[in-house]
């Protein structure tokens, strides 16, 4: 197990290293001069030269990359072009908000999706299955920005149950932030729900056709016991991986959802940074998101290996 874990962590480090190189390369494709973007159109040549010097823009690409990466590893993401303040505290605060929202979403989405998937598989090709698959298809077709806007209309403006603007005060506790987080979390849930439910259904349905299920039933084991002790234990294993894969969707979904609800997370900050062409801020946000995504994959792989010894022995 330790060897497996070490191998996975080394792989994670490599992935992050390559991803950081990719992020840095992309953000340096910019046609034009970051110094000019930072200072604006009126800046004189002397000021531009000074800014280029301060930003290290005159150094060759590899030198700039290594410098940037070295500072990032020490938690220093530079200063924002827009606000002139240090980026790291801002990004970490917003990351915390996004993680809260992601956590709440997973808390709703995962049990619900598994329940729906199992129910659909147990009633394969009968009405509960059809109902679930038709509903999830309809949900798949709804972009999260449309679902979000509809939910705001219904529950914020119509019924007045929750605030329409999901901005939360800095330093608010989870309980204080909860009312503002409910609608965004439900919207993001819909993004993942159909996907996880569908794959869970396929997995459980496939497991039900295995010969051992019939053997157990013929032995006189009750249907419920076969399901609990045998089928679900095997069939829900891939769900761990499915959840990790859909974490990527969750990140994409949250970027949109946070913008619909004006929720102060990383996704909202990213569109802010893009609007102002704030390159260091964009780099820091992307790196943070990539790291979280990679860690989620690592956690899923390790969980899978703990649950299924065949993986780590292979």
């Amino acid at each position: 197990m330790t060897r497996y874990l070490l191998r996975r962590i080394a792989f994670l480090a490599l992935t992050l290293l390559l991803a950081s190189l990719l992020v840095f390369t992309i953000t340096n494709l910019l046609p034009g001069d970051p110094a000019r973007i930072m200072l604006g159109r009126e800046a004189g040549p002397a000021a531009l030269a000074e800014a280029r010097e301060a930003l290290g823009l005159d150094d060759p690409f590899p030198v700039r990359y290594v410098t940037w990466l070295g500072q990032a590893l020490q938690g220093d993401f530079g200063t924002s072009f827009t606000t002139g303040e240090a980026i790291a505290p801002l990004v970490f605060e917003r990351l915390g908000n996004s993680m809260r929202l992601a956590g709440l979403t997973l808390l709703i989405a995962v049990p619900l999706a598994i329940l729906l998937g199992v129910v659909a598989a147990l009633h394969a090709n009968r009405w509960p299955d059809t109902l679930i698959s038709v509903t999830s298809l309809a949900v798949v077709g709804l972009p999260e920005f449309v679902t979000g806007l509809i939910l705001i209309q219904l529950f914020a403006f119509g019924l007045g149950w929750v605030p329409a603007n999901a901005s939360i005060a800095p330093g608010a506790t989870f309980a204080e932030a909860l009312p503002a987080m409910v609608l965004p979390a439900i919207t993001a849930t819909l993004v993942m729900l159909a996907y996880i439910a569908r794959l869970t259904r396929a997995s459980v349905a496939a497991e039900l056709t295995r010969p051992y299920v019939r053997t157990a039933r013929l032995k006189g084991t009750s249907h419920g016991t076969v399901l609990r002790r045998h089928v679900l234990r095997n069939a829900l294993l891939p769900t761990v991986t499915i959840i990790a894969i859909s974490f990527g969707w969750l990140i994409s979904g949250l970027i949109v959802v946070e913008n619909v609800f004006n929720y102060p997370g990383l996704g909202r900050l990213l569109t802010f940074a893009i609007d102002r062409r704030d390159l260091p801020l964009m780099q820091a946000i992307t790196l943070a998101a990539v790291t979280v995504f990679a860690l989620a994959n690592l956690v899923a792989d390790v969980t899978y290996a703990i649950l299924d010894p065949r993986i780590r022995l292979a």
Partner: protein
Amino acid sequence: MTPATATPPRARTGWRTLRSLFATPTSTVGVVIVGVFLLLAAIGPLVVPYQPNEQLLTARSQPPSLEHWFGTDRLGRDVFSRVVAGARDIFLLAGGGTALAVLLGTLTGLMAPTLGGWWDEITFRLYDTLLALPALLLALLILGTIGPSRSSVLFVIAIAYTPIVARVVRSVVLSVKTRDWVAAARLQGESLVWIVFREILPSVLPALAVESALRFSYAIFLVASLGFLGVGVQPPAPDWGLMVAEARNYVFTTPWTLAFPAAAISLLVIAVNLAADGLGRALQGETR
């Protein structure tokens, strides 16, 4: 599994793929709806009553009527004309981007495992790295840097989906590479290019068809999301996502300006999914 055979599954694969689109009632519905959208995209500008950006100053914020089927927005633009014009954009950007991704993904996915060694390693290391970024994040990072435009949206879709297509193609290639008919072709002294395109490619087609359809449905979402976030197609273009974003503050006064473009996105995505689903079911037996 049939016993070892020296004949690859070639010929009429394309035709069978086409026919299997109509294999089930639901996939037929999907294909028909996609067809209607495609037709609108092709001939739309000829049949719509107004230019997408034409402002009828005497008819602002009109509810749907016989004259304006989908109503008009607060600038007096005919929503039906804009939705139809947006269909062309969606097929050009999401469809074009997907096509590019399928082309690049197929070529590299076929060549990498065939050439093997370093080539395979470098290509797929790059693809894995690209996949470390969720699609929307990658798209935002690129568009945020090079600036939003129609061609950059197309480019971004191609970049985001090439690795996934290549992965699917590669997995099929690896599974058929050792089959007898490939060995037979090699023994006959046929060239590598011939083997890849005539012997291996036909086996890849079914999986590729399903994957392309799925990618297209995601690409529609991606284009719409980018438009909604204001980093994709720029105003005043009749982009569906952009139209939803422009309408969001007027949901109470002119709900139709939001409802119709939103419905267009949903309908097209659902239809593409139905078609992909039918395709997958019909071709399932052929991929093994």
